[in-house]
């Protein structure tokens, strides 16, 4: 029997507990950061002592670009911000422009806006649900969610031509009316959605592992939530009943009957339940909007701002001139500044638009809900385990395209 091999001193196992703190970099390529978020975590063992988000990896200077583009060209930039909720971004942007111009939007266009925004909200929440569950370890939910989401994206594609970048809402109304057969298709989807939602509940809500991973994790109190400017499901998950569709109604939301779900605990589980219940309310609004669709114009009566119909352009000289002027030179917007907030799928999406007159804005600023919600991440994650940080990021539902702009 030979003696045990001698271990060189540099490989000797030191039997000492780690009594020092360790700083590690989580991301920017970490799969659970939903893009390119980097977190600088100071750890004591497995516990997070300090978390510092580092953003800007996806910064593309969109707010600068707006100043060099005409108002109607800016719409396509907004699609690329929160790419899971592009119709919400379109809506906030065009409504800020409409506020400056003082345009009246026809009833049908408003109803279609509500319908499309609620479908988009469901689609956005489905991505959140799938990826949130995936981060925590439940693989199956992802496929079920994307199956349903695909149906919504197909409808958005049918209406606008783009799946992820629709640019469907324009200043003064819509790009065009809904295509033939859309209402039936939408009805078919809405009829089948509630059973699917029940399916998601059976997959996750009663799952003991999921409950243990989320309940009591990443708590934030109601006072802190307001102090840190949280909005949307994150704020309602802390027990605050605030929904801008109710508080500052826009595009006719005051006429719809829906509830604002809140949960009292302020943890990951509460934010999960708020979004799950919110999908049901969105479904309710979409059903109401679909039943209220009446024939009518989808563009405001403002020939100097809204592109004329194709047929009119071919037969009327003035329509042709307006078309040429809008495309070649843009339309003048009166000087002034507005801030228009909407309830996007992730929270308060505000657009600050400043005009000095002329066809290009002087300043466009997006108050992204993800940007503000992410800034509260240190409060929620300090004192938790590293693995819980993954759950907390998932529960915030951030999109880096909107944070970095």
């Amino acid at each position, binding site marked *: 029997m030979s003696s045990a091999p001698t271990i060189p001193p540099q490989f000797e196992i030191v039997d000492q507990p780690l009594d020092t703190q360790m700083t590690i970099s989580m991301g920017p390529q970490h799969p659970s950061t939903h893009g390119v978020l980097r977190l600088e975590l100071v750890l004591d063992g497995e516990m997070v002592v300090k978390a510092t988000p580092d953003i800007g990896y996806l910064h593309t200077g969109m707010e600068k670009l707006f100043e060099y583009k005409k108002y109607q060209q800016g719409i396509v930039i907004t699609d690329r911000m929160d790419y899971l909720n592009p119709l919400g971004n379109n809506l906030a942007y065009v409504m800020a422009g409409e506020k400056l111009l003082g345009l009246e939007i026809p009833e049908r266009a408003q109803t279609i806006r509500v319908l499309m925004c609620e479908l988009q909200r469901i689609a956005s929440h489905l991505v959140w649900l799938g990826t949130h569950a995936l981060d925590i370890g439940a693989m199956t939910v992802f496929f079920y969610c994307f199956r349903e989401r695909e149906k919504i994206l197909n409808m958005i594609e049918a209406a606008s031509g783009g799946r992820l970048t629709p640019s469907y809402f324009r200043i003064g109304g819509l790009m065009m009316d809904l295509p033939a057969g859309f209402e039936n298709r939408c009805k078919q989807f809405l009829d089948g959605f509630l059973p699917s939602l029940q399916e998601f509940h059976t997959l996750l809500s009663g799952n003991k592992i999921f409950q243990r991973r989320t309940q009591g994790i990443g708590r934030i109190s109601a006072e802190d939530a307001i102090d840190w400017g949280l909005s949307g499901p994150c704020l309602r998950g802390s027990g605050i009943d605030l929904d801008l569709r109710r508080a500052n109604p826009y595009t006719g939301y005051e006429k719809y009957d829906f509830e604002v779900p809140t949960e009292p605990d302020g943890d990951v589980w509460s934010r999960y339940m708020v979004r799950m219940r919110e999908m049901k309310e969105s479904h309710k609004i979409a059903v109401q909007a679909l039943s209220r669709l009446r024939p009518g114009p989808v563009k405001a009566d403002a020939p100097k701002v809204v592109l004329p119909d194709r047929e009119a352009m071919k037969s009327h000289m003035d329509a042709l001139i307006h078309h040429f002027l809008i495309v070649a030179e843009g339309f003048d917007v009166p000087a002034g500044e507005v801030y228009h907030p909407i309830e996007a799928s992730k929270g308060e999406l*505000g657009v600050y638009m400043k005009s000095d007159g002329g066809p290009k804005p002087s300043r466009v600023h997006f108050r992204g809900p993800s940007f503000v919600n992410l*800034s509260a991440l240190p409060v929620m994650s300090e004192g938790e385990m590293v693995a819980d940080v993954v759950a907390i990021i998932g529960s915030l539902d951030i999109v880096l395209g909107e944070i970095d702009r």
Partner: protein
Amino acid sequence: MENNEQATETSESLAATAPPFVAALQREHPECVSEVISAFGEFTVVVPRDHIVAACSFMKTSPDTQFNFLADICGADRGPEEEPRFEVNYHLFSTTKHHRVRLKVLLNEEDAHVQTVTTVWKTANWHERETFDLFGVIFDGHPDLRRILLPDDWQGHALRKDFPLRGYEPYSLK
């Protein structure tokens, strides 16, 4: 008060129609209000630079105003030839009364300093960092005034009007 001739209503004509939250600020802290503008259904209060923290704390705590939620802070550049050149807009919201107001601070280019409001709302932290990053406005007393969107070694402030759209030279990581 140079802009009194502009199309929007200004302080004098508004005295009767101002909403209670603006009237309360005018009554309790007249030094915080240099101008009130009403346009497009929104109210803007122009606040002298030195009084922004006092105005914000009052707006947050007074029972007449209850602006407990800071929705947004954003900068704006009026152009290099304008004086004052920079604007900082504070968009306030009340989660109980559901009303909104905009506080505006005007800053000169040579002295683009304003006191931080992170002492009033913690959420101001990242908004102020963003405004500093893109406009070069310094928020005095800010706990962590670093760049947030652009790299740490970036030269200049990208959203200023005299900063070219494509930058001065291709950026490379050093």
